[in-house]
């Protein structure tokens, strides 16, 4: 139990996917301008990460390892993730139209998001069993949410600041992101 908890907390704080591993920076910078878009994106990412890692774990263990085709991981995982996201979008459109309206547009964005692929590959590399893999991915999604929501807050504050002309826009955003990332490095060594 304690190990599972430390696994999740590790994924959220110490090894935050965006701020410590630098995966999924594209949506991080792209969608974090406003808080509500950030929340919508995060919801979609949590869902996709958890479900995708479950499927990829199954594909890896029952097909790839069995036939000694580990080198096909990247292709197979991308295939699984893309198909899964498409399936989720179709189902969501039919069964939950209001949910589809709020986060449906983000689903294609995260199809080839390296954070989703990253979590799938990390599960394999660390040899997690099914439960650990799903939990770790859920934690990774939560960590992504935390980073996105925090940064959305930072960016909304930045809007009212007096920024030098040459730094306006992307430069100051990247500087702010690196400072937030530095802050998260303070969590290193949380679990000894």
């Amino acid at each position, binding site marked *: 139990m304690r190990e599972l908890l430390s696994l999740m907390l590790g994924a959220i704080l110490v090894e935050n996917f965006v701020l410590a591993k630098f995966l999924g920076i594209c949506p991080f910078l792209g969608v974090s301008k406003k808080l509500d878009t950030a929340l919508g994106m995060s919801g979609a990412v949590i869902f996709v990460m958890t479900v995708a890692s479950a499927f990829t774990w199954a594909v890896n263990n029952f097909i790839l390892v069995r036939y000694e085709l580990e080198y096909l991981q990247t292709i197979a995982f991308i*295939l699984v993730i893309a*198909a899964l996201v498409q399936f989720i979008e179709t189902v969501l459109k039919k069964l939950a139209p209001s949910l589809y309206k709020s986060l449906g547009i983000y689903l294609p964005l995260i199809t080839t998001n390296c954070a989703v692929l990253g979590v799938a590959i990390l599960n394999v590399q660390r040899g997690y069993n099914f439960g650990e893999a799903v939990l770790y991915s859920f934690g990774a999604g939560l960590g992504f949410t935390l980073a996105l929501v925090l940064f959305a807050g930072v960016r909304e504050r930045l809007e009212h600041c007096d920024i030098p002309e040459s730094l306006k826009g992307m430069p100051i955003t990247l500087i702010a992101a690196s400072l937030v990332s530095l802050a998260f490095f303070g969590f290193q060594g949380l679990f000894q």
Partner: protein
Amino acid sequence: MQILLPVLIIGGLGLIFGFGLAYASKKFEVKVDERVSRVREILPGANCAACGQTGCDAFAEAVVAGGAEVNGCPVGGAEVAEKVAKIMGKSSKKFEARVARVMCGGSSKKCRSKYSYSGIEDCAAAANLFGGPSACAYGCIGMGNCARACPFGAIVIEDGLAKVIATKCTGCTKCVAACPKKIIEMVPISNEYTVRCSSFDSGKVVRQNCDVGCIGCGRCVKVCPHNAIKMENNLAKIDPALCQNCGECAKVCPTKAIELFLCGVQNKESVAV
């Protein structure tokens, strides 16, 4: 064999997923009335919500479902109303275009200030401080909330006074909601003479504050041949339904004696109202 197996496996996975997706798209198909997308295409797409729906998508759905009138989009105007009516197979009702008009002539040149304001350039914020920096508590503050709210760039701020560019105004009414003094009104586009003042102060006070304010003398009311002007609380108001644009009121308004700027009447040739 070494090459064949992975090819088969990846190919097989792809096929399975392909079939799965095809099946899902059939089973979870959402029936969309194709008229909705046709109507949506004609709409201006400004998502201004002047029609009363939450946006152009919602309006398209409402029209096809039967809840909204085909001429419900004021921004699209008569042109869009006709096209929508054709798609729906109905005839559209007659469309009366309206434009926004700022009921104030108190630019920084004409109206005095109560105090010097230094703070957030926002009319609503300034209005909280004793009604705004303008000496007239009813007048335009001129910090541009209306201009920012306008999705079509039809409002400009000149000398601390908001002006609507009638040719750009589509009648979406977003500025009406944005003004904290509530001095922007929608008037029919054919209406040319308007009392450009919203002050209920007595004539003496108005004179002190602003050169072009309505002092409530009542000359316009007496001289109007169509009884289109009413005086309420020291403020004259022209009823656009009765006004025939004859201009007699403009000739007798006294506050024009002080400045060349006419009180209550716009220059017929000017585009900005």
